[in-house]
């Protein structure tokens, strides 16, 4: 093997190990020089991103390829038949999520350079920042249930500290406290579920569990605990209330990574439903009186109900909110609703023998929207941070006329506004079009509610655009200048990707989204890759 092959072979471990090691080196480098530390952190993130791209190239080179990396050995199953080794299993879905995390990490760390410049304690900030990134990548890449819990905890603890980073503001500390309570509670139930599964099957490996699971009463309890815990971490209504607090009070650069962590939780829920329990959902019937109902249909209806609630309440609360970042946070809740609407709709039809296309299409829309939501909401948060950086104001009532002083930021906001509202030619349009189309096949009312709420979402951001950027130039903002170049660069990177995906959605769908959908629907491939051993 040449060095590139070696790098690709070890890449799943390196993607987590490099930011983890970087995190612990950061305080030491900080002692030398602040600029050197900032450069080092950017280098670490870029190096990790390069390895993610290498791995992505490897995964996408062969259709349906899964890259398995076993820690401390070459075989996943030991001679006694025990699957005790920790392994990372990277398929189309894992790498799709890793690519999203990569974009967020690069933009976040570049943005931090100027945005956090005036703050003290930046050695701690960057250490926690890299830990958060390592935790996020770990959650995305691992194929082990307990390992997933560990990375969830790593990201949660780092996130909590970063949400409360501005300790001089009481509300930030309050938001950090709420976040850790919510995260710890969710993680505790996930751990409980992992223990239930381990107690029954002597395995923690997701693929091995998927092959063994019997869907007993205990397994059902484990599924309830897993999905509830992850749904709370993903911010699904009515378990979303921590999200505006955390997103709203954290520095914008941190909020960007928080979006990634939230989506990693959503990924976890997808992995549990479709891969670990996927085989049983197809052939399990629940009995209501004399009627037998497919379990996937029942689960799908429940998820669709929660998604409608998520979209509706998210949008309505965003419309009312006058704090810039909290408003975007509520809009982010609504956007999560669109993703789970598609996933719920997919569940109701994905395993149907008569209608296979609708479920797959819904899943495609939902997964595509994960990428688009991360970019759109992420860009809006960066704009909100830029406005705060320039004006020190967060209340929309105090803002106005900023388009005259902050031209580039205004353009970036406009791009984010159009994208999050699903307007062409931005990326949100393509994924929402697929979601509307597929949910209409399931039930027209779902598509109608989704479209109406998308219009309301546009109304939300038109309000922001008018109150913050338009109107006469306010005398108190005479001295306001455009934000530094590194912040503009971070926003520019995301804006360019948004426009690129918006213009060429079919390219992204076929090359990145479709492999992720295939990975989710073909759970037998995921299982056989581990049970059949790894290919050296």
């Amino acid at each position, binding site marked *: 093997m040449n060095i590139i092959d070696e790098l690709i072979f070890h890449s799943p471990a390196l993607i987590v190990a490099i930011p983890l090691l970087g995190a612990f080196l950061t305080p030491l480098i900080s002692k030398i020089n602040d600029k050197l530390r900032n450069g080092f952190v950017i280098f670490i993130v870029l190096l990790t991103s390069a390895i993610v791209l290498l791995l992505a190239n490897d995964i996408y080179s062969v259709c349906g390829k899964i890259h398995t990396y076993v820690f401390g050995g070459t075989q996943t199953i030991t001679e006694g038949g025990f699957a005790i080794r920790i392994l990372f299993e990277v398929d189309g879905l894992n790498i799709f999520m890793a690519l999203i995390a990569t974009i967020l990490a690069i933009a976040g760390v570049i943005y931090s350079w100027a945005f956090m410049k005036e703050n003290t304690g930046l050695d701690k900030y960057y250490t926690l920042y890299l830990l958060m990134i390592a935790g996020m990548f770990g959650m995305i890449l691992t194929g082990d249930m307990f390992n997933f819990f560990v990375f969830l905890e790593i990201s949660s603890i780092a996130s909590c500290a970063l949400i409360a980073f501005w300790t001089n503001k009481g509300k930030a500390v309050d938001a950090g406290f709420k976040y850790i309570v919510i995260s710890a509670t969710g993680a505790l139930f996930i751990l409980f579920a992992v223990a239930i599964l381990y107690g029954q099957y002597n395995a923690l490996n997701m693929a091995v569990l998927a092959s063994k699971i019997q869907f007993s009463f205990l397994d*059902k309890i484990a599924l309830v605990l897993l999905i509830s815990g992850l749904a709370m971490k993903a911010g699904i209504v009515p*378990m979303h209330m921590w999200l505006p607090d955390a997103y709203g009070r954290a520095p914008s650069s941190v909020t960007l990574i928080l979006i990634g962590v939230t989506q990693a939780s959503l990924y976890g829920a997808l992995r549990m439903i479709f891969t670990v329990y996927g085989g049983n959902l197809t052939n399990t019937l629940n009995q209501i009186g004399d009627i037998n109902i497919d379990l996937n249909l029942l689960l799908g209806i429940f998820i669709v109900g929660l998604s409608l609630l998520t979209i509706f309440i998210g949008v309505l609360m965003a419309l009312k909110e006058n704090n810039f970042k909290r408003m975007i946070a509520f809009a982010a809740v609504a956007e999560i609703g669109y993703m789970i609407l598609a996933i719920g709709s997919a569940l109701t039809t994905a395993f149907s023998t008569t209608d296979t296309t609708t479920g797959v299409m819904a899943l495609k829309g939902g997964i595509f929207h994960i990428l688009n939501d991360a970019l759109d909401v992420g860009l809006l948060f960066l704009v909100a941070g830029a406005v705060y950086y320039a004006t020190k104001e967060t209340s929309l009532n105090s803002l106005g006329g900023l388009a005259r002083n902050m031209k580039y930021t205004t353009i970036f906001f406009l791009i984010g506004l159009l994208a999050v509202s699903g307007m062409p030619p931005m990326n949100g349009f393509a994924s929402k079009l697929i979601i509307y189309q597929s949910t209409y096949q399931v039930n027209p009312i779902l598509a109608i509610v989704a479209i109406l709420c998308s219009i309301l979402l546009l109304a939300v951001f038109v309000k922001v655009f008018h109150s913050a950027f338009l109107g006469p130039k306010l005398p108190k903002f005479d001295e306001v200048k455009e934000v530094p170049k590194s912040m503009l660069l971070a926003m520019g990177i995301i804006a360019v990707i948004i426009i690129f995906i918006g213009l060429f959605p079919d390219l992204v769908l076929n090359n990145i989204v479709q492999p992720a959908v295939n990975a989710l629907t073909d759970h037998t491939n995921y299982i056989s890759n581990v049970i059949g051993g790894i290919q050296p």
Partner: protein
Amino acid sequence: MIEIQDFLRTLGTDSGFWNPLVWGIIIIIAFLVVYIIRGYGKKEYKKQTEQTKVFLSGNPELEKEEMHVKASNIYWGFMESFKWLYSGLDKMHTGNVSDYILWFVVIMGVFFIILGVI
């Protein structure tokens, strides 16, 4: 390997389609139409003259802060109409972390009933 023509492929759903080339042509036509309409505008318009001053039916011009419509005033009518809904939503969003956990327990309970009991 991604070819040039892959960029121009059409995203098709049963109800519509998206093609960057078609969109580009339409947007150019739209801008042309806007430009033509603009051409019919009054030629005597002059910047930085009396023409551009605010006229409020003879009333004095307000301070700039007062002229700007604040965020909380936008959609005021909508908020008033849905006061009943918002009062319920406000009660739900208490900001108390114990309530957050309560909602989690409620959803977990409902989920358990659906999956485990039914």
